[in-house]
């Protein structure tokens, strides 16, 4: 499986349609992994673009490390990954904390970033942000158990529960993840965020606690548009097709209409 060695970290990377003319890099959220995109949203985008997915450090099949979960370290990793894959410039899509990573990329390396799609990026200054993330983990686990675990097979169910439990235990108790996230509290007030000039799509679940964060970003980023989709913070899991279509509309259709005068159908 493709593990890529970067100067600071070894990351698990998956690529779809490597021959695509332009690249979209998708960043997942905390306590998740690239599988949140791999089976539905990424293949939809891969009909038009090269799509690069990666597991953040400490997540999925990437290297487990104790420190460096702040946005600066995360974006250094992503910049290094782009260098390693020979990607000069890419569009970015990020979900939850991954959305903040995408925004930070646009502030630190504007010349490397095309369009930005932020899905459910939470305002880190909100007291509830960490609580939201806790809820999210619980919901994720419940969703997981309801959908994937068969309670009549305790032995098999135990393996996944233990695996998930180990991940939370590791990230919460053995890494700097919580203090790193707390250290990002002022991020939305950073003048660099208001200075982002990239075309930006903000997608939030209409039932999500994060909608006010979306409104804040919409008011600060000049070339941004806020879209509410049916669902809550888990909207990419709840409505992958809706999210995929919004992203295609944003990344592909708009471009093609400008470039060719008509939307291309690659399906």
């Amino acid at each position, binding site marked *: *499986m493709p593990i890529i060695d970067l100067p600071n970290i070894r990351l698990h990377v998956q690529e779809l349609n490597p021959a695509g003319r332009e690249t979209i890099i998708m960043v997942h959220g905390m306590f998740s992994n*690239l*599988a949140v995109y*791999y089976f539905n949203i990424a293949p939809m985008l891969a009909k038009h673009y090269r799509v690069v997915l990666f597991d953040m450090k400490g997540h999925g099949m990437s290297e487990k490390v104790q420190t460096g979960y702040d946005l600066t370290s995360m974006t250094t990793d992503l910049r290094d990954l782009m260098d390693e894959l020979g990607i000069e410039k890419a569009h970015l899509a990020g979900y939850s904390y991954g959305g903040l990573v995408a925004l930070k990329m646009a502030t630190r390396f504007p010349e490397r970033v095309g369009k930005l799609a932020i899905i459910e990026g939470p305002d880190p200054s909100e007291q509830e942000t960490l609580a939201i993330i806790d809820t999210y983990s619980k919901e994720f686990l419940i969703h997981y158990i309801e959908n994937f675990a*068969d309670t009549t097979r305790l032995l098999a169910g135990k393996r*996944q529960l233990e695996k998930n439990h180990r991940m939370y235990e590791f990230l919460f108790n053995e890494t700097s993840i919580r203090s790193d996230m707390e250290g990002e509290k002022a991020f939305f007030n950073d003048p660099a965020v208001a200075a982002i000039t990239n075309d930006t799509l903000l997608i939030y679940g209409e039932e999500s606690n994060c909608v006010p964060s979306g409104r804040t970003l919409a008011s600060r980023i000049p070339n941004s548009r806020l879209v509410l989709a049916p669902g809550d913070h888990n909207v990419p899991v709840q409505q992958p097709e809706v999210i995929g279509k919004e992203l295609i509309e944003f990344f592909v259709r708009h471009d093609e209409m400008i470039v060719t005068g008509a939307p291309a159908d690659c399906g």
Partner: protein
Amino acid sequence: MDQLIQENKLSKEQIFETLNQFITEVIGEEFVEEMDITPASSFTKDLEMDSIEIVAFSEKVKNHFGPNIDFTGWLSNMDLDEIIQLKLENIINYIQECQ
């Protein structure tokens, strides 16, 4: 000609053996020992594989059977319920059809 191609095709048993090996590599031998993996095993309920493990499994399928088998594309046409119901034999049949 048709017959020749027919002869080169892997049998269902051969495909099953290969997939069985991939599953063992992904979830670990210690867990596989406690399971009875058959073509009727479902990925999520019987084998308790989560999505990132299915990603790793897909990667192995792609690397082994080659680019003609668009396993990820095939999966992406399914909704969550279908993926939850997915059995090993569905994949064996899919690979046989693609050969």
